[in-house]
């Protein structure tokens, strides 16, 4: 059904002629080094990465490979900072001017490949390029497998996006549950929550790549580490603050300081690049009737559903769950009824951080690992809990599913895919206007 084709993505990094030549500078990068720095400020000293993207298996009449136009390529530094972006033109060529020499990563945005073209599951969309100014032009070429996908109809696209919305929503739901548990127990909106998601991915990567554990074991170990981190975090930071009687607003500012602290530590230790785990990075999707899912996606969905169900049942049935709900309802009354509020809060931090860590693990398996994984998710998590109602378990679940689906279905209805998160913000603002306590929230929480 799917015919395999081979395409060639040739990346040439070279010193190009000064600015004026950029428009025409295409296939053969000029080896002549530029003598004077060009005038444009953005361009630096005229260095650029030239990319030619073509489908080697489909040739034009002249016998040259068929170019692939309209594909977005992004260049990032090892710090993960985007330094350039270009879209391939009718000849499949793109130039990305750079400011200085160094090692860069060229990333191909799969979503922008033309309909009917899809990257083979065994290839990566990223390539590292080293640019040496003054040296010989560096030519790098690497093959990318492309498989012709059937051009899908609108109904199929809709089904696909709903399914991926549910999958993504479940990942968001784990993090949102974590946030809600912590909020419920302490009243604190934790702005460092995104960094806890990042921790899940980063620690999994370390366990997997550096300690050599298989991905599944690494994920399980990460959840344990997250739980420990949750305990330590409460013990070292938040409990002393509660003892001091620090106000919630002050604690929120402490949490942004903590976010900056953790984010910089992840960037310091993990690096700015986007990395992949050693297994399950790409898997071909199988068909189950109208639904297409890869094995790892099924695993992600199952793991999240099972964990969420266990947590919800535990919250409803067990002693600890009842205690948590009681503390979240009225801490003073729970304390006077003889409950140890501090240990309940500590448990909420442990459980909440573990769930959030698991969300980070699944996100890492689902896509890739980067120190920014969490900060991009944070917006969605906030939108989800606000939509469902801050501090409510069912609200967090419901809100996450809605946000997941809104975000993933958006592109089917013409929302640009690189900013599909906008849908979540719109939902957030609307719900605050119409029903600020959230769909399942209660009035007294909003102030």
């Amino acid at each position, binding site marked *: 059904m799917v015919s395999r084709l081979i395409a060639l993505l040739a990346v040439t990094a070279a010193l190009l002629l000064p600015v004026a030549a950029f428009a025409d500078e295409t296939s053969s990068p000029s080896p002549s080094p530029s003598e004077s720095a060009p005038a444009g400020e953005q361009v630096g000293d005229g260095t650029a990465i030239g990319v030619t993207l073509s489908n080697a298996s489909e040739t034009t009449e002249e016998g040259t490979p068929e170019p692939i136009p309209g594909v977005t390529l992004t260049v990032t530094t090892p710090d993960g900072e985007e330094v350039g972006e270009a879209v391939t033109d009718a000849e499949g060529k793109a130039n990305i001017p750079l400011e200085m020499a160094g090692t860069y990563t060229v990333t191909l945005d799969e979503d*922008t490949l033309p309909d009917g073209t899809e990257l083979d599951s065994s290839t990566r969309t990223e390539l590292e390029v080293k640019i040496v100014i003054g040296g010989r032009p560096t030519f790098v070429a690497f093959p990318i497998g492309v498989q012709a996908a059937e051009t899908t109809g609108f109904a199929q696209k809709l089904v696909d996006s709903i399914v991926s919305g549910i999958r993504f929503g479940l990942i968001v739901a784990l993090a949102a549950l974590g946030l809600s548990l912590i909020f419920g127990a302490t009243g604190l909106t934790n702005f460092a929550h995104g960094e806890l998601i990042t921790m899940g991915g980063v620690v999994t990567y370390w366990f997997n790549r550096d300690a050599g554990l298989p991905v599944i074991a690494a994920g399980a170990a990460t959840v344990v580490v997250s739980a420990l981190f949750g305990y330590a975090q409460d013990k070292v930071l938040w409990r002393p603050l509660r003892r001091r009687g620090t106000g919630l607003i002050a604690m929120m500012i402490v949490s942004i300081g903590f976010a900056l*602290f953790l984010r910089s530590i992840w960037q310091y230790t993990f690096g700015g690049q986007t990395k992949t785990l050693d297994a399950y990075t790409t898997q071909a999707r199988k068909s189950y009737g109208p639904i297409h899912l890869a094995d790892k996606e099924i695993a992600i969905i199952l793991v999240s559903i099972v964990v969420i169900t266990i947590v919800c049942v535990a919250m409803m049935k067990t002693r600890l769950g009842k205690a948590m709900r009681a503390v979240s309802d009225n801490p003073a009354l729970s304390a006077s009824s003889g409950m140890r509020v501090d240990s309940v809060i500590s448990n909420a931090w442990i459980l909440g951080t573990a769930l959030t860590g698991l969300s980070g693990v699944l996100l890492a398996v689902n896509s890739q690992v980067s120190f920014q994984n969490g900060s991009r998710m944070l917006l969605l998590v906030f939108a989800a809990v606000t939509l469902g109602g801050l501090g409510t378990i069912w609200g967090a679940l419901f809100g996450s599913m809605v946000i997941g689906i809104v975000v993933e279905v958006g592109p089917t209805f013409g929302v640009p895919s690189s900013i599909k998160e906008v849908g979540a913000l719109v939902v957030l603002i609307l719900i605050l206007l119409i029903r600020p306590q959230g769909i399942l929230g209660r009035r007294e929480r909003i102030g």
Partner: protein
Amino acid sequence: MDFLDILRTALQQALGPTAIVYALAAIGLNVHFGYTGLLNFGQSGFMAVGAYGLAVSVVVADLPFWVGIFFAFLAPLVLAIILGLPTLRLRADYLAIATIASSEVLRLIFGSVEMKDTFGGSNGLTGYSSAYKDLNPYSGGLDWGFISYRRDDLWNITVGWILVALCCLVVWALMRSPWGRVLRSIREDEDAVRSLGKNVFAYKMQALVLGGMIGGLAGLYFALKQSSVVPTDYNTNLTFLAYTALLIGGAARVLGPVVGAVIFWFLLSGLGEFFSQMTRGTDPILPSWLMDQTQSSLVRFILTGLALMLLMIYRPQGIFGDRREIAIDGR
């Protein structure tokens, strides 16, 4: 290791254009957080719309420079109203959530491929600042031996400190007026103010707009001094750093954010230079397995995060503040 060099860099930066950007952003935050008790975690969003307000209207819409300046003030005003309307009646977290979320979304929109024609994608926009540069009256740079500024920077610094002074003057005048007293009483006890018949929502909205527009001015100035607007500059770290600057100097003080920004930027660039020197060269002082050149630029942000936490815990009033003024709690 050259401590004189570190000191020079730090001092030069502390009075330079970047410190001014943080001073302006922190003055805006001071109106929000210090005086009114509003938690704006998305000051970078206000700065971004200010900067893009100018850049888009001049570069893309081809309007005159001064019209661009007008839009740079209009855009944060509109953003403040959009964010304030749903959240200002609610508890403080909701404004914080809405602002931090919108600042991230704005950054994604400004950097998106699909809107490259309007916002320039991740490369941003350039070529709007010639009118500003042409106003430069200086013929040469400034060289005091120890610190020196190029001609452009001298002009940036002059304009910047004038703007900071004007903003401080405005804040000072407003906060000693009856209007400012109402803001401060809203911070202390919203219900009491409401019971005296004041429209708390309207006052909060005015404060949000004022602080947001000062934030927009910070973005505008950032865009002018940099001659380019790039979306990655406006990430949430910018907001967090501005909060640190504000808390160092002391919230709810007119000059707090300014002094805070100068000290903060002095320390930040000093630390940056220090760790950069520690890791420089073929045989760096710090072993490369511990810290390399890329990592050396991150240490200061780790320390900033730590400093922000410790400041808020142990000395929320900063250097000049009054502890009673910053004992904000509640909504």
